[in-house]
């Protein structure tokens, strides 16, 4: 999940679709994000590479919409509704997630276990 400047970023991602829940006059998703290009990457407990300035999921409210959709704590969000999340500031990320007109957000998230799973599956099934 580390990036080399100038090279395209490749990652194994999972599609997560979260329906926003209406609470009062707010639409909430039920998780918290941390990170961003304006934040200090060294304090991110979930990133493997401590210079990774991407947006990470830091907390999931139990039984919230994100939990039900299958989002896990520690996931790195790569895209939100088509918008890139790897090179945004914290506030930009928040804005993209909390648009009032959208009821649903489709995230592309990546985590370490996805890579492992793909590798595992590659090894288990020898090439024909």
């Amino acid at each position, binding site marked *: 999940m580390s990036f080399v400047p100038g090279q395209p970023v490749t990652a194994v991602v999972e599609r997560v679709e979260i329906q926003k829940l209406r609470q009062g006059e707010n639409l*909430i*998703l039920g*998780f*918290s*994000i*941390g990170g961003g290009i*304006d*934040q*200090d990457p060294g*304090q*991110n407990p979930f990133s493997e590479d401590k210079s990774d300035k991407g947006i990470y999921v*830091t*907390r999931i*409210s139990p039984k919230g919409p994100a939990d039900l959709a299958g989002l896990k704590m520690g996931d790195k969000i790569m895209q939100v509704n088509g918008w890139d999340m790897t090179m945004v500031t*914290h506030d930009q990320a*928040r804005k993209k*997630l*909390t648009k009032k007109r959208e009821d649903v957000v489709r995230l592309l998230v990546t985590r370490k276990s996805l890579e492992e799973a793909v590798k595992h599956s590659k090894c288990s099934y020898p090439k024909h």
Partner: protein
Amino acid sequence: MDTESTYSGYSYYSGRSRGSHRHGERSRDRHKSRSKDSRSEKSVTINTPPAEPLLGDTAVRGEQVQDDNWGETTTAITGTSEHSLSQEDIVRITKDLEDSVGLDCRRYFTRTLAIILGLLVFLTPLAFLVLPHILWPDKLQSCGTACEGLFISVAFKLLILLLAVWALFFRPARAGLPRVYVFRALLAVLVLLFVISYWLFYGVRILDSQDENYQGIVQYAVSLVDALLFIHYLAIVLLELRQLQPCYSVCVTRSTDGETRHYNLGQLSIQRAALAIIEHYYCDFPVHNPALLSASKSRAAKHLAGLKVYNVDGPGNNTAAGIAHSQSRAMIAAAARRRDTSHNELYYEEAEHERRVRKRRARLVVAVEEAFTHIKRMQEEEQKKAPGDVMDPREAAQAIFPSMARALQKYLRTTKQQHCHSMESIQQHLAFCITNNMTPKAFLESYLTPGPTVQYSRDFWRARQWTLISEASVTSGLKDGTIFLLKCVDFSLVVTSKKIPYIQMSEEYIDPKSHKFVLRLQSETSV
């Protein structure tokens, strides 16, 4: 006991207590502890009698090996020790006499040499100027204005030289050192050679040929005075300036109680460094109190007294060294096996002593504060009104002294300082404090903490004769790792020196505009 009488007899006869005999107020305890201290310093054999057969060198006292009844033959042992002591005594007394006579002789000798040299130096230019007028006045050219100007310059330069020499050399001698001061001797030799060479030149080229050019002669005299001023500058640099820059850090430890101080000295010879250290010692180290050492000595004596080693084989079987070896080894082994509870005693004793001192101190402070409230300074107007019952400071001190005397004496006895302060000195100090409007706490300060030696009465340190014991020559310079001893009668100061390291410093330039900061952000937003 017999031993007691012989001990006190020794202290009466020894040269050192010529001084102590003057002051009868000193307690007997101090005499005894002092003589015991000196005993243990001199030789191992002269210890308290129980220790002697254990540690003594049996090769020397071979006739005592067989003596199982050492308890009854105590008189014989002290007989030998008294002999050896009195011999050493005589040696020391004669050495003292020799030294004092030798030192005085040497001081007068150097003084006369210095005076002769000084007179030679000052009269030489004047002689240069005057001799032509005496010897060949008719042939001499008359002195023009330039020449007379030179007279003025010679006069003033000589005056400056006189003042400078007086400032640098005519100071009261601080000490008598064992060897000659090398730099001073070298400078004296240099000046002598210099003046002699000038006289030679003058004698050969001017007196013999009877030169008529008087201005040349005057210029020659002026050049001599200039050169003498430069030699004086050299003297300042060598004698005063060179040792100012600190080069060595010396660590001075007192052998009896371990008081340690560190000083910075420049490049000095060992004897001058020793002199500087002794002067610092008088001002910095708390006064040496032999009464405080008796506790550890009694503990040591108890360790030794617990065991007695008997030689049942008799003499002649082993060599003397073998006997001593086996005795000491047996003793050490037995001491290791013995369950020693002396540390326990020490702990409780010290705690008890601490409590006692604090209690006495509290009583003392209260008594002194109360005593001070009894007198009041009288104002000017009152002085004219009531002439009766007016006291001067000494009488006031004597009036309030009895109310605090007992508490003070008890406190001094508990802290074993009673021999440092006599009643007279306490009353004097009290009068001094009253005169200068000092508070009771200020009055007590000199009794609660032991001050530097120099603050006590001169009897404490007047009779001090210091001996410098060093492996290197005392006129050689201080080096890294020099160790020497300064031995006094009661204790010695162990001095070690270490070189202050060479410092290599480099520079780094920081642009003032380069100080920039960013915030470390770590926010978490819930969506």
